[in-house]
């Protein structure tokens, strides 16, 4: 029988050859190292691969179908990073039948360095809004670091605008209107200046705000004479005279007129919230309810400014089950639709912009999450369907 290979005696090769054969060849070792290196390189390259960002295609331009031009929503696209989410948001706004949105364009996001404008994000929002056929009312505010005192001198908040920088803000307003003027429904100068935390943690100052409004109005109209400049965006508050937290909005508006604000705004922006009250509750200077906005209207009439419209740029009811100032979801729907009816009937009001359509993340802002019409993952809540039915003239799916 032929012996197995391992039992066969060694062939008679010279010892130095046998020794060399027993050692791995240097070439082979090099080849192995080369392969291992190649594999490492491929693995390294694979770890750097990321999925391509979703492509966003504008598509053909749309128009908004609606039977109620009063319906408007405040969107929250300022901090929305993904372009497809901006598009999806505005698409849902259009499908809901709202022809107008209010959106915030913070000054520090655009002019991070003095005189150098970065319009990329604003362009993105405006491009998609135009594609969906929406009119944008732009809320302008906040202050870049370069326009505030250095931190070593004074610690300030993002809403602290020193008087000597009013001209810089007005310049931003002018630049914004020059860029988007034809596509805008108007610009709101500042937000809730009658609250101290919106006025750089200082006592609200109607005269100073009037000066800011005057400079902004002139800059906006110099850029586009047809632009509508909204003054105010006043918040409802019952703060007493001399309070460090805020000033009653009626008192603030009166003092604006006394400071000569009348020629410097084309419409008044106002915020009005219902909390637990029905929209029909009568206006009361000591109760924050929906019809309290009528008190502002009375001031305008008293100062001979009754021809100007009021645009309600923030309003709504919350259905947060944890909040004592919220209502049940069904009440929220009923009150919102009733409020839309009221505003449609008021000849002096043009829009009711609901706070808010959707926010990028619901995680750290529960209060606003329950004001939203759509969850951050685009789930349309019942209030969305009810407002949609109202705006499109359909039967209310949530009628009792």
């Amino acid at each position, binding site marked *: 029988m032929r012996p197995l290979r*391992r039992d066969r005696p060694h062939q008679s090769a010279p010892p130095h050859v046998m020794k060399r054969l027993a050692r791995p060849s240097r070439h082979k070792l090099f080849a192995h190292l080369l392969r291992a290196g190649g594999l490492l390189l491929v693995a390294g390259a694979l770890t750097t691969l990321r999925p391509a960002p979703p492509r966003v295609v504008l598509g053909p331009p749309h128009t908004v179908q609606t039977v109620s031009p009063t319906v408007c929503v405040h969107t929250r696209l300022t901090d929305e990073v993904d372009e497809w989410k901006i598009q999806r948001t505005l698409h849902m706004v259009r499908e809901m039948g709202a022809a107008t949105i209010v959106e915030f364009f913070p000054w520090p996001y655009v002019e991070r360095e003095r005189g150098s404008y970065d319009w990329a994000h604003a362009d993105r929002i405006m491009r998609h809004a135009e594609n969906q056929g929406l009119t944008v009312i732009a809320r302008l505010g906040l202050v870049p670091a370069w326009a505030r005192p250095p931190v070593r001198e004074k610690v300030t908040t993002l809403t602290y605008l020193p008087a000597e920088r009013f001209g810089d803000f007005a310049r931003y307003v002018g630049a914004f209107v020059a860029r988007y003027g034809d596509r805008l429904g108007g610009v709101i100068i500042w937000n809730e200046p009658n609250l101290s935390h919106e006025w750089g943690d200082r006592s609200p100052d109607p005269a100073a705000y009037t000066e800011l409004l005057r400079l902004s109005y002139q800059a906006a109209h110099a850029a586009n004479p047809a632009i509508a400049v909204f003054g105010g965006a006043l918040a409802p508050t019952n703060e007493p005279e001399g309070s460090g937290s805020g000033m009653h909005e009626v008192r603030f508006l009166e003092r604006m007129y006394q400071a000569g604000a009348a020629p410097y705004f084309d419409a008044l922006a106002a915020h009005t919230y219902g909390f637990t009250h029905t929209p029909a509750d009568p206006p009361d200077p000591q109760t924050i309810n929906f019809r309290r906005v009528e008190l502002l209207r009375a001031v305008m009439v008293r100062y001979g400014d009754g021809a100007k419209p009021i645009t309600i740029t923030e309003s709504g009811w919350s*259905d947060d*089950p*944890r*909040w*004592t100032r919220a209502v*049940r*979801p*069904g*009440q*929220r*729907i*009923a009150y919102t639709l009733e409020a839309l009816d009221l505003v449609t009937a008021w000849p002096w009001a043009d829009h009711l912009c609901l706070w808010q359509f959707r926010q990028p993340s619901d*995680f*750290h*802002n*529960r*209060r606003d999450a329950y004001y939203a019409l759509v969850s951050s993952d685009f789930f349309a*809540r*019942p*209030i969305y369907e*009810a407002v949609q039915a109202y705006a499109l003239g359909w039967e209310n799916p*949530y*009628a*009792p």
Partner: protein
Amino acid sequence: MNRWTARIRSLVGGDDRRARWRFWLALAALLVIVAGGVAWRLTRPGARFGPQDGTWRRVQINGDLYVGLDPSYPPFAEWTPEQIVGIEADLAREIGRRLGVETQILIMGYDSLYDALYTGKVDMLIAGLHPDATLTDWVYYSQPYFDAGQVLVSPRDAPVSAMRALDGQTIAVEMASSGDAAARRWARRLHALTIERHLLPQDALRSAEEGRAAAALVDAISARLYLPAHPGLVMAAEMTVAEPYVIAMRRGDFRLTAHVEQALQAIRADGSLDEIIAHWLLQAG
């Protein structure tokens, strides 16, 4: 035995180099597996060389347990001039008592709760939280201590325990609630289901009580607040739509989570949890 010894000897000292290599390789593999097993045992959480639960250690040494609460949600948590009261406050104190430590309640806004847990300001949160799948990489959620979901309430003489029993009948719901959404889903599954919508859950419950609807589907809190004064109604044992409230802790605090789970189980088993809930719901009602 001798046969194996001889075999091993032949493998170790034999002339066959391949067999020798195979033997040593197998032995090395075996050693690696054994070493891996030993290392795994020794480095498991809580083992000699594994990660330790510093929170549990601190709780034991200092004898205090920090619980985060949002006191804006009566009857679960409410801020009175004297102290924080409610179901969640009592539950927090009871857990502390069962663990043999003193509960320190820290109040904070709802949006700050998870930040406080993440930064170690508190050891746990009892604040009507629902399990959030996006946080489970670092948050451990306990078994529920309450279910605030949608539950069927029906007349005691004609009880309805499940939605499928409502075929051909009328159900009363709170408009735009998750009960309303559930009723719509069931209307598609059943042959016929009439949905009666009400602005408030109390109105839906009244409809069931007065016989206009066979049952009402409302949230468990509203149902439990309504029922004591209306003994003609009965609540189904099982939720139709679950919305559990759970305790949140850091996943890394493995000993604390285990002890809290045990305490919660004991509190539930001896009826203390039901007593706490019934007490505060009765007061709120």
